[in-house]
């Protein structure tokens, strides 16, 4: 049973960036000339993180009866944190547009949506083997690293093992 649990946990996050392969798959389009990169990058992160939330919660919902409780509980942590973090990031972006200035807190608010996912995923390690923790955190690190180009002067904190 534990082997099967490891299988789907690894499948969920281990395949995150393996299909399709190649760093170029996630190469962001250049920001249009004259466009504010803070706004474009923030909106990219907000759109993608919303998609991730929708897909992950739907997957857990559809397979709930087959999944161990700790997986549902980890996704519940994500459900509890993400909407607030996402809405705060949208509000921060609106405030940024109003004052037309660069505020480091704006970027911190926007990355909070992704970090909310990280926190809930790391809770899996309470009941997971060291190999599972490594694979999950490696997959999440790869995802966050692929978004590093969004914030060249504000590195996104890496998940702690």
């Amino acid at each position, binding site marked *: 049973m534990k082997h099967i649990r490891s299988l789907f946990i690894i499948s*969920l996050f281990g395949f995150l960036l393996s299909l399709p392969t190649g760093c170029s798959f996630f190469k962001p389009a250049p920001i249009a000339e004259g466009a504010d990169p803070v706004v474009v990058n923030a909106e990219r992160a907000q759109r993608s993180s919303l*998609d991730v939330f929708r*897909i*992950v919660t739907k997957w857990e919902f559809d397979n709930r009866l087959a999944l161990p409780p700790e997986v*549902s509980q980890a996704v519940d942590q994500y459900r509890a944190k993400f909407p607030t973090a996402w809405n705060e990031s949208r509000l921060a972006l609106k405030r940024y547009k109003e004052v037309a200035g660069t505020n480091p807190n704006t970027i911190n608010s926007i990355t909070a949506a992704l970090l909310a996912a990280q926190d809930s995923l790391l809770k899996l390690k309470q009941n997971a083997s060291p190999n599972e923790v490594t694979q999950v955190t490696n997959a999440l690190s790869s995802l966050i690293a692929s978004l590093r180009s969004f914030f060249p002067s504000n590195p996104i904190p890496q998940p702690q093992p």
Partner: protein
Amino acid sequence: MEFATVIKALQLAAAAAQAAAAAREIALALRASLQQSTPLTPEQNAELDTLASAIFAAPESQPSGR
């Protein structure tokens, strides 16, 4: 092996397969978002906020209670 155990194993295998499909969907969604090169229009922002509200209110977004 009991029938119930076999069914459970098949359900977990199905969940794993769906996890792989979900991971691919995430990758494609991430790639699509990275193609944005200009700020969203006010209409697009309004649509995004409306979409988020619908997602957060959906049954899939409610606590599992487990």
